[in-house]
């Protein structure tokens, strides 16, 4: 295979990996704090894309305002989702909360089918993202360059937020020990809302960029990426933000490279994540960067 082609695939793998990483962080943060798989996270990502789509096509707003609106509305939506579907079940068995999460996911998907219509929509791509760049003989669509850069900026800000601010410290405290954090006077509910908000912002950023890269919108578009990104979070070590990023990149690169190097396996692309998940769970259930925990007897 020519070097150019390999580079081409790498670029694609990195941008897909970036998108997965952004989505995986949302899962890992929520799981870290609530021990809950937020099944609806993939649907929040879908909403982000649709909101940007409608701001551009129905309200004719410039793309950057549309993207901003998408991020803000999605963020609010994430917070509302937590209040409506998860907060009432704070003290319920985990199985109930998980069913509620699955229910929320299906509710959003079905609502989206009713409101947005089931037919695919084409995401309008501003010219700045669709330029073909030629770098050293490799032709790359500019969006593939933007995605990793924007992801890097988002991760940088997130890292600062979590490690260098008061609210970040509170988040880490809640994820280490929920009860103790509450006893220390941390308003746990606010922290949880904040976490959902942050996760949803990242999902919206991911969603918008997903639309730019794969411009076909359907109400169920969040389902598969959602599942896969949860897997990315598990692979990296659930609750660990760096792990989620690592998992996202492994998954993104892995999928692209499988298709690139073994076209006969391309039909199995969607199975890659699940196989990876099962291997990781059996070999190192705590994930690549996760810590082992044992139940106290």
């Amino acid at each position, binding site marked *: 295979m020519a070097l150019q082609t390999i580079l081409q695939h790498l670029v694609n793998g990195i941008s897909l990996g970036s998108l997965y990483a952004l989505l995986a962080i949302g899962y890992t943060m929520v799981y870290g704090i609530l021990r809950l798989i937020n099944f609806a996270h993939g649907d929040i990502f879908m909403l982000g894309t649709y909101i940007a789509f409608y701001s551009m096509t129905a309200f004719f707003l410039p793309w950057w305002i549309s993207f901003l609106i998408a991020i803000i509305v999605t963020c609010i939506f994430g917070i509302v989702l937590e209040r409506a579907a998860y907060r009432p079940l704070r003290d319920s068995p985990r199985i109930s909360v998980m069913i509620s999460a699955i229910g929320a996911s299906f509710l959003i998907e079905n609502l989206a089918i009713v409101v947005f219509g089931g037919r695919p929509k084409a995401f309008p791509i501003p010219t700045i993202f669709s330029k073909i760049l030629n770098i050293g003989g490799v032709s790359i669509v500019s969006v593939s360059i933007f995605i990793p850069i924007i992801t890097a900026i988002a991760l940088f800000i997130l890292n600062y937020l979590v490690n260098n601010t008061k609210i970040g410290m509170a988040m880490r405290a809640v994820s280490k020990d929920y009860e103790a954090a509450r006893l220390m006077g941390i308003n746990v509910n606010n922290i949880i809302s904040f976490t959902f908000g942050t996760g949803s912002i990242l999902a919206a950023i991911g969603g918008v960029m997903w639309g730019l890269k794969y411009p076909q919108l359907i109400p169920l578009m969040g389902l598969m990426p959602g599942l896969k990104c949860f897997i990315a979070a598990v692979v990296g070590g659930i609750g660990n933000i760096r792990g989620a990023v690592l998992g996202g990149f492994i998954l993104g690169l892995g999928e692209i490279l499988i298709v690139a190097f073994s076209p006969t396996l391309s039909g199995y692309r969607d199975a890659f994540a*699940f196989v990876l998940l099962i291997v990781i769970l059996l070999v190192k259930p705590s994930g690549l960067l996760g810590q082992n925990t044992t139940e106290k007897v």
Partner: protein
Amino acid sequence: MSKKTKLTLISIIACIGILFILNSTLGSYQLRILNLCGIYVILALSLNLINGFVGLFSLGHAGFMAIGAYTSALLTMPPEAKEMNFFLKPIVPWLANVQLSFPIALFMAGVLAAGAGVLIGAPVLRLKDDYLAIATLGFSEIIRVIFTNTQSITNGALGIKGLPYIGIFNKASEAIWWTWGVAIITIIFMALLINGSYGRAFKAIREDEIAAEAMGINLFKHKLMAFVIGSFFAGIGGALLGHLMGTIDPLMFRFLLTFNIVLIVVLGGIGSITGSVISAVIVTIAMEALRVLDGDMQIGSYIIKGIPGTRMVVFSALLMIVIIFYQRGIMGTNEFTWDWILKRQKKISEPLNKEKVS
């Protein structure tokens, strides 16, 4: 024969009588729904065994159903029908000319699904809670992806059309005896299982794994047992569903299908056989009844244009409401047992008797 066994027998005979009447009076559309009810009873019970009684949160049901449906379809279809279906890529020779009778194929559907249950359960049953959920979900997706890609066995994304009717005489009126026959057998099987020593062991695992193990219960063995039994019935349910629909394709066995069954189990009460049965019937009928929501509605002279998908919105919302406000579902973990009924009857008649005495 004890009083309870007699009551059970009487009610089974009553059931058969009711089915007989329904079968000869209902139209084909209603019969189809009635069949669907029976199938969902089987599916709900099989998932409830795993999720409700052993407390393993498995989300892999659609995968086992797919295995059952494809197995039975490929084993019952005549060679010519297969040839017509597999026009893109011919079917593998060893499957092309196989044609078994329906009951054998149905049983094989269960056996193969159970076999998959062993293969999947052995590695993943070491996991707990949401990890188990996501791993089983993963496996069911893998099964679907495999079925989409093994063109010469499953006909890939095209699916298989023209599955034979349920039954051996190739008559539509026969289906009800198979669907509800299997459903009744499943109910009895589950009731006997749950009330025996193994059922108690299952419940112990649900209540507290560590304590159950300290009581000498081999966790892995018992979990696998329940998982495999559940897969077996899921395979049979899937096979019946495939024959009832007449057409199967990999998309039919998406996570949504598992979700429907989870919905039934949750509504009925996680860990209640009676709950699952009642809820399966209610949900199946309601799902059909609510189809009006998807179509156009006329109120007076106004026509409200129906939006496809409204029905599912209502259902997802319903699940949310149940799980948030009414977590125990219809039955909780309670059962409708003869003891319970007899006790109630006594309670009602006792005061009456006392009055008579005084």
